[in-house]
């Protein structure tokens, strides 16, 4: 853990918990409808068919290129956000937020503040965001319904859940489409430094 506090292994946390703070994947339909996509789950805005995602407003089917291009644009938007390089002071009484970085990096730029600066949009948050998008198109996770839910449990507008047999059939039928979408996320995950453990810096202490 960051502060020496033991934390559970990331891989043992449920997706609902792990991706709680990730942003949703929004999709636009050519009819102008703009909705959250949460995988093969029930939604008031879209439904899954054997041929992909269907907008409930106009009953139009979004083709694969439509979904992958919007997914890719959304991913790139988060990467651009990350590279804004905004840093924030961890001292809650200070509140310094800036794009300036001192030659000491972690030193806060407000006079006399002893706080530590860190990137506001962290690489961990970005990595989790990519993993969240990856989970949406993961056939096994869809089948097991282990995805992060689209609606809060107390939300009264929450639609009735899909039945297991239906989910299984839809998952299989959409496997190819989903794999194409997943490949978009994987394209960026393959370049993501957080995915690779930096052995050099982990064992730095041994060289000293």
């Amino acid at each position, binding site marked *: 853990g960051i502060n020496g506090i033991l934390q559970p292994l990331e891989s043992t946390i449920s997706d609902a918990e792990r991706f709680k703070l990730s942003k949703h994947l*929004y999709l636009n339909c050519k009819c102008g409808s703009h909705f959250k996509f949460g995988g093969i789950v029930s939604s008031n805005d879209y439904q899954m068919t054997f041929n992909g995602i269907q907008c409930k407003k106009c009953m139009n089917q979004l083709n694969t290129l439509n979904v992958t291009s919007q997914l890719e644009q959304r991913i790139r938007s*988060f990467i651009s956000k990350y*590279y*804004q390089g905004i840093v924030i002071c961890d001292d809650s009484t200070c509140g310094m937020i800036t794009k300036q970085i001192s030659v000491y990096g*972690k030193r806060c730029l*407000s006079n006399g503040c002893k706080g530590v600066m860190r990137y506001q949009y962290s690489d961990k948050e970005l990595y989790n965001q990519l993993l969240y998008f990856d989970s949406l198109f993961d056939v096994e996770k869809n089948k097991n319904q282990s995805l992060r839910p689209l609606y809060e449990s107390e939300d009264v507008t929450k639609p009735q859940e899909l039945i297991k047999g239906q989910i299984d059939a839809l998952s299989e039928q959409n496997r190819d489409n989903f794999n194409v979408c997943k490949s978009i996320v994987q*394209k960026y995950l393959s370049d993501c430094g957080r995915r690779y453990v930096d052995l050099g810096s982990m064992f730095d202490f041994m060289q000293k």
Partner: protein
Amino acid sequence: PKKYQFRTMRTKILETADILDEQIDSFTKIIQQHYQIPSSDFNNPSIISQSEIITVGRIIPDNPQVESIQLNSSSLALETSRTLGIGKRIPLDLSNLTDYSLFPGQIVALRGKNASGDFFKINEILEIPYLGSPVSTNDELTTYYENLENDLKILCINGPYTSSKDLDFTYLENFVTKVNNEIQPHVVIMFGPFIDISHPLVSSGNLDIESPTGKKIQTLDDIFKFLVSPILKKINNKIQIILIPSLKDSISKHAAYPQDSYDKKQLQLSSTKNIKNFPNPSIFQINEILIGVSNNDIFKDLKDINKGSPAGENRFDRISNHIIQQRRFYPSFPGSKSQRKITSSNDDEDEFEFLPSSELDVPYLGLSEFNDVLPDILIIPSELRFFARVVKNTLVINPGVFMRPNSSGTLAQITIEKPKIDELTKINEDGEDLYLHDIWKRARVDIIKS
């Protein structure tokens, strides 16, 4: 090149700080050597002193939190390195200066005094010395001369290659015919974006494209593979093509600057020997000519505060001069920002979406520095109006965009006379005769309609 293959999305703040510190220290050395100033004359500008001192640092805004507010002559400060001033920042008083052009991120050497402890009053800005120009030997130049039948012709083309209303590459296709039959250049340098990730159609949900061969187009990469690659392959294979990626390109997974080259295999261009993929930025040689290219819009992003003679200069000249003096393709820091409002969603989520801008991966910015010489030609595409100018004997070119949002755009055609030894400037170094390339005297740049 391997150095550009670093993994993105993992910037460490301490590594960022190291680079920012090194930039100041390396210029301190350059200034010291050039002006032959003893290192004891360099001092910390943030502490009170009775006498004039010399100092080196980075121009920054005096308030770290302002970003959107326009800076002015009374809102600048200087950041010192760890060695020179333990990283202290001190507001600057410019009132003694008659001529200046300063911008955030710029490394400067100053002579002045901090009399009260509150600010450093500048008496003089010490010019950073210019890098030398590349040179060649008689033998090299003779070979280049003999190998060329005619003058050397290079085209520079900058994306986007479609209008903002469609992803139709017909314009590019027609242009390729013109390249093959009429222009017949030796080299074509093509800058991305080929498929702009911020293209309106990419987000509208109204994208339906068919490939001419009936291949199913499922991703943006497919659009390149099935629509763009075949067009590039039509370019006569005697013409060298150099592709430089853009931070806006959907086909590049390396969405950070410095940016790794396109993956030839991914683009389905493996079979083409005349197509080369270079990183962004890069410096390469065509015959004797050293060309530096960078696809990050410094002409748009660098905003200086100026007075006196620099204010009377052409803005592109001023920025080119800064690039040349700072010895790196993107001397601004922090980088730029671009965002747009997303379709209103009736919940609490993010209202804005970020668009590709400068994506600086600061720990790797060393890769965006010139080495020990100044390129003969600098090509830095910009959204701003096309231009070709000679600055400090360097030819600086912005070819404009191939397609504007609603119409065709421009590109640059560079024609360079064959190197005639007796017309070049001869210099003698360590007993050997070497020649400056004098490209600025031999080149002609035509901005042509796409």
